[in-house]
């Protein structure tokens, strides 16, 4: 019965294949970017949540790194 359903779509075999290709390309692209990305950018980003220290209202010990 399941084959019967699938027969109504032409070339259903192509779907898993497309998924796999998109998937592999996506991850290669992402890792390629992450490995090459500028370390200065990473350091800057890391500090973003910590950079609010000049607010006068903040009463927890501040971290000046």
């Amino acid at each position, binding site marked *: 019965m399941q084959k*019967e359903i699938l027969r109504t*779509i032409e070339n259903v075999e192509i779907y898993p294949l497309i998924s796999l290709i998109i998937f592999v390309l996506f991850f290669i692209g992402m890792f390629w970017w992450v490995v090459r990305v500028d370390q200065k950018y990473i350091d800057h980003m890391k500090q973003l949540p910590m950079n609010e220290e000049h*607010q006068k209202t903040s009463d927890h010990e501040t971290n000046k790194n």
Partner: protein
Amino acid sequence: MSGVTLEKFSYDNKIVKYFGAATLIWGLAGMLIGVLAATQLFLPEANLGNPYTTYGRIRPLHTNAVIFAFVGNAIFAGIYYSMPRLLKAPMWNKTLSWFNFWGWQLIILSAVITLPLGLTTSKEYAELEWPIDIAIAVVWVSFGANMIGTLLTRREKHMYVAIWFYLASFVTIAVLHIFNSLALPVSFFKSYSAYAGVQDALVQWWYGHNAVAFFLTTPFLGLMYYFLPKAANRPVYSYKLSIVHFWSLIFIYIWAGPHHLLYTALPEWAQVLGVAFSVMLIAPSWGGMVNGLLTLRGAWDKVRVDPVLKFMVVAVTAYGMATFEGPLLSLKSVNAIAHYTDWIVAHVHIGGLGWNGFLTFGMLYWLWPRMWKTNLYSVRLANTHFWLGTLGILFYALPMYVAALTQSLMWKEFSDMGRLAYPNFLETVIQIVPMYMLRAIGGLLYLSGAIIMVYNLIKTAGQGIFVEEEMDEAPALAKYQSQAGEYWHRAWERKPIFFTLMATVAILIGGIVEIIPTILVKSNVPTISSVQPYTPLELQGRDLYIANGCVGCHSQMIRPFRSETERYGEYSKAGEFVYDRPFLWGSKRTGPDLHRIGGKYPDSWHYHHMVDPRSMSPGSLMPPYPWMSTNTLSHDDIGAKIRTLQKLGVPYPEGYDEIARADLEKQADQVVENLKGAGIEVAPNSEVVALIAYLQRLGTDINKETADLPIR
């Protein structure tokens, strides 16, 4: 940065306070309703003897209150606090902020009213009817517009990873909500799903799973990446890891929905795809958890004394547990045991109580003293809350695991004679009643902790002075513009939009590959020729079944296992559901499967069972529905219902809406006649008559000759 002119601006704390307070209020309400639902499962009297508070209606009220009201308001509170600070700009538009706030509370209020009234689509976590769905879409888009506007007016060039998570959540929930809610209205409070049967199931679980992913997970990961470093006072362990975490999570999550439908009538390839992607999910999820926990490296001495960090550590650990368990549950062999049992209930509560609850608590304990410029009123009370909450989670989850394994094994056990060892379903329920009691105690512990928190936060606010607008200053982003020229300025401005588009593409790829083939399947053409549309009376009965949330306890999907076919009958076929709008496969078997209930008992059995389940099944936990024998239906809407279904492609004959009423009355008279034979007097337009007609029809079509079809 010396020599640069600084612009002064302020952050709006008032909106954060309002969202935070809403989280507290709805949180208590949602948990209280949860405790009520838990109690109903061992004490049917707790259904309180009226339709509005029966389990079938209370359960969706609980899930909606907790997901959309408690967690939803926490998300907004956290985002409205962190986003402006990360971007060095106030939220773009205050009117939109307040529209977001009041709109969201009104939506929740309408859920609190409509769900107990039985106005529901019955699709899990998407129960609200179409007018409310439209309101949700409008408010959600206003929230998104406010975020994007803030990005365009930001003073910080780069978007911190938390904001990536916020944006992806916004986009994905918008897409999911709109596609899953597509329906054709019959009236202001009733609609029929645009999808039927297998299609509807696939779209629903594509939505349902991703609601968990993009409402309960990704926004909270954003909050984790902001509030955990803040609370620990050290930057996130690895920013690169958080990038990988983000992209792989949103890319993989969207494919995993079909794991909710293993062994069902869903096509095999979709099931396989769902399993594969679910298993892969463990990698990014654990990457995120490790990143969170390692952020605390060298700060564990602080964790021991600071309740904020304690809550956050348990939250992140619970995230790790739930995301380990999720892929495990997606494996077909594990799923065969766990599906339909309390294992799934335990699983979601590890996520809900542990991850969402504890992260919210940690965040609120951190926010309140800061916004009121004071210290937490009582660290000791916060620690008490922490231990009560942790005990609550344990008392909730452990009994549920025991209950699930016990019951599942009983369902599947065969005697030496080759028969079911426990042919009476109820026996397997009564066995786990003590576990249900323990679970309610767990819920109660968790709730009492939350009450202590509310007291503590009120006291904290009382001893401080609320800072409504927090001042800050930063150089304008426009400075870069003059250096790099017009072109770059515009490229930067477009970047957040471009980024949002990329995230959308990532989630759409998974969605399209998964959904399109199923949409292409011509499910409106019956693959089983004897399967016919419901008669008008059965349709009314079905809508009662929906309105009363019977789907919360009963599945209608018999899996192809011997233990199931032996118990319930022939396993369910995709072609049998082509007229089911919405599908009612269910996800939890507190009661037995009902797909082959048709013809199993005489009408009189159902009558007595609905009025008082324990008269037919001593010890039953099913709520009694005595009013169904006296409440009547006007049936005035049947013509409109038939016409709506015709528009959706259900092949009722041309002009059938005109004569449907007569057909309905004829069938009702027949049921009344049958009941009279058993000495029961009931009006033909009473609710129970329609419900019996529906129950007796269920699952019987495949045995029929095409000749004796109800509608020709």
